[in-house]
């Protein structure tokens, strides 16, 4: 079942809530930035300067190290036309590449299907968190959803070994596909079987894992540790998905935003240290995105919903640097007070799909988009 340990692996870390682009990759050399952000602007001596007249958020020191080593790509001005400024609609669009209608097929659900068309490995894609991200949803395509690896198992309350096996045998028969089932029942059946089989496969991951790296005590570090455990167990998992947040910094932004980026940076640093220790880093990239950026002018305490944002891709295989351009902050170039996206997120996906996962991107992102080639 396990495929080559060195197959390319994608980890998506979703920054939920709308990460403030302008205070993440800070255009601190531009006076317009300081004029518009009386309450939340960073001073020149606070940011971590990189090239191009921008600097990283002071809490991103560990990520700046990765950038300096050439292992991080920053993609500027990302988004799509006519942002609805709704977290939820926007996240749906990012998940499905369907800005106009309700998409039901997640882009990574489609990628999972293309990676494993015969559904040979039900842990090809693993989602961390209590809910299943829509990006991973595609009818008929299995995705293992893990909250806590240590307690992952079906009907674990039945103590007698033989009795439990009998019950699980009945279970697998009851959940077998059946003619004439409606869509939801079919889905329940498939999910039940995946839960049972997935638990059997995944239970080896924490058992076989050992590492000298102590991860930070944060929710995102715990998720990345779980991802590392499964990756290192060599189960053939190619796509991992998790999120962190909330980045919805309408108020008291400076403290809140600093904590979020401290936790994300530290967790990623722990994650890569762990992977390096086990020679498991070079085939992993991490993609970070958020559903939108935030408004140019602050509201006296934080920032409201905006449009264009930044995405980040980290990994040894990444050609580090900045891609695209920081959108103009001049008042006449803004739309409803927001930065206008100049890089379509479907171009970012195209690069990841084609240059990393080796898949045909067009049917997944539904079109041709200019792709920043950072791989």
């Amino acid at each position: 079942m396990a495929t080559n340990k060195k197959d390319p692996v994608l980890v998506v870390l979703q920054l939920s809530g709308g990460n403030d682009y302008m205070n993440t990759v800070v255009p601190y050399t531009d006076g317009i930035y300081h004029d518009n952000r009386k309450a939340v602007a960073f001073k020149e001596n606070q940011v971590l300067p990189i090239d191009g007249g921008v600097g990283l958020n002071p809490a991103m020191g560990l990520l700046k190290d990765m950038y300096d080593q050439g292992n991080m790509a920053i993609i500027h001005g990302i988004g799509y036309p006519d942002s609805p400024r709704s977290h939820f609609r926007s996240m749906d669009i990012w998940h499905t590449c369907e800005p106009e209608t309700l998409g039901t097929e997640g882009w990574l659900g489609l990628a999972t299907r293309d990676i494993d068309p015969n559904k040979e490995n039900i842990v090809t894609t693993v989602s961390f968190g209590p809910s299943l991200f829509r990006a991973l949803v595609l009818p008929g395509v299995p995705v293992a959803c893990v909250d806590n690896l240590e307690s992952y198992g079906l009907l674990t309350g039945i103590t007698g070994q033989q009795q439990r096996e009998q019950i699980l045998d009945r279970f697998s028969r009851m959940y077998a596909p059946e003619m004439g089932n409606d869509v939801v029942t079919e889905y329940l059946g498939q999910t039940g079987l995946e839960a049972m089989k997935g638990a059997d496969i995944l239970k080896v991951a924490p058992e076989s894992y050992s590492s000298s790296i102590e991860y930070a005590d944060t929710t995102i570090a715990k998720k990345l540790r779980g991802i590392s455990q499964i990756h290192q167990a060599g189960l053939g998992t190619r796509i991992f998905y998790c999120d962190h947040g909330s980045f919805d910094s309408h108020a008291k932004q400076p403290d809140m935003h600093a904590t979020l980026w401290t936790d994300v940076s530290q967790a990623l640093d722990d994650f890569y240290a762990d992977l390096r220790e086990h020679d498991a880093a070079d085939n992993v990239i991490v993609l970070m995105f958020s559903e939108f950026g935030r408004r140019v002018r602050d509201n006296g305490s934080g920032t409201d919903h905006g449009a264009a944002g930044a995405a980040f891709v980290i990994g040894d295989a990444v050609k580090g640097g900045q891609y695209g351009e920081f959108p103009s902050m001049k008042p006449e170039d803004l739309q409803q007070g927001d930065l206008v996206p100049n890089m379509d997120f479907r171009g970012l996906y195209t690069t990841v799909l084609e240059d990393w996962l080796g898949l045909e991107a067009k049917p997944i992102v539904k079109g041709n988009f200019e792709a920043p080639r950072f791989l």
Partner: protein
Amino acid sequence: MATTSSKSTETTESIDLMAHLMRRAGFGADRDDLERRAAKGYEATVEELLNPEGARADRELFLRYHPGFRRPVTSPGMGGSAWLYDMMHTELPLEEKMVLFWHQIFATGQSKVDHWHELIAQVDMFREMGMGNYRDMLVALAQNPAMIYWLDNCDNHETGVNENWGRELLELFSMGVGNYSEEDVYECSRAFTGWTIATVPPRNYYSRFDWSFEYQDEDHDYGEKTFLGETGDFNGEDIIDIICRQPATAEFIARHLYNFFVADEPQVPAWSVTPPRDPEAIDLLAKTFTESNYDIRSVLRVLFLSDFFKNARYTKIKSPAEVVVGTLRLVGQDKLPPPGIGDMSKQAGYMGQELLNPPSVEGWHTGVEWINSGSLMKRINFVADMLGDTSKPGVKRIVDRLQAQGNLGPEEMVDRCLELVGPVKAGAATLQQLVEHATQSGELTWDTEKDTAESTAKVGELLQLIASVKEFQYC
């Protein structure tokens, strides 16, 4: 003979319908309760649910056993327990179900509010107002301290407008995306400047201070505003009045009620691009909403008496809260708050619905999106542990009922058990496996103490298997 058989079909149908009503308008009911209600009649039961006379759960009793919840200190993990206790023990199931309904829409979370008592106070407000006037509830919501903090209206000033509350009021609490402009969001937000919170120091001022609503006149923007085409010096209540008059609001609330009580709709952000599955039903509910001057009780009455509701049996996926509370009510907890209630209150969270801590203000994705391999596993494990425990009073009652029917062969045993935990309507494949299992374990007999003990264990094992069937996930 013919009369008896048609009468018994009639009884089965009236129990089935009553079970449907109680699953949707409450958290399910055990067989005794269903029989009592069916005898009383469907319409009378709807009326009783709408105008209930029983007792709520005893909050004082809860506090006596869990003083850790008492103000101003809340021990971690106890936060959601008070509400779970309310849901487990209320005699007014629809009132409590409406609390859950509004919490799923006006989703407010501990992750940011960090103040359990204010969240519980919000939930208490839903209990008081949840079946009343929607306009009044929106005003109360705009003045609810947990909500004000959750959506930053305390940072919404004349000198610096914060759009968080203003936007979500329109997008998630009333009209839905696509029915207003960005200018409307801004003007709406201006109208709520000065609506903020004050802290009230408790007598022993450690831990959290209580919050209360405060209107700061000097911070309110009294300038002229144009909102949804109307112009005036609007304050927050004027904005709410305008919102309530919009057909989009009536349709939005109607669709939410339909999604919660009748059949699963797509997720809310998609409503602007996907029409309702039953437009006539939405029209009827929306019309009732407007004509009754936004009276939720009137809309609920029309809904529960409609054919589209009665015909929608087993068409929804249970929410995690419904799974947990329904199971706990079925297995019949002691009236006294159990020591493990803190852990029980976390169970729905393990299944993807952490009450009082939604993933965001959008609330949860419902329907089939409740189900994934991890959450389904948690559901099955929890229900199997509960139903398989034959020492629980509700499970004992199930065993007693079976025993009263004498010796039971495998098919009868399966049929009776499915009836007593639902009814659960099992498909052919499920039924076959259950019957084979029951055949393997043998007939239920009650002649000696040993027989009774063995039969009780067999029932427990069968109930565990029933807890794991697909059909159990339907509401």
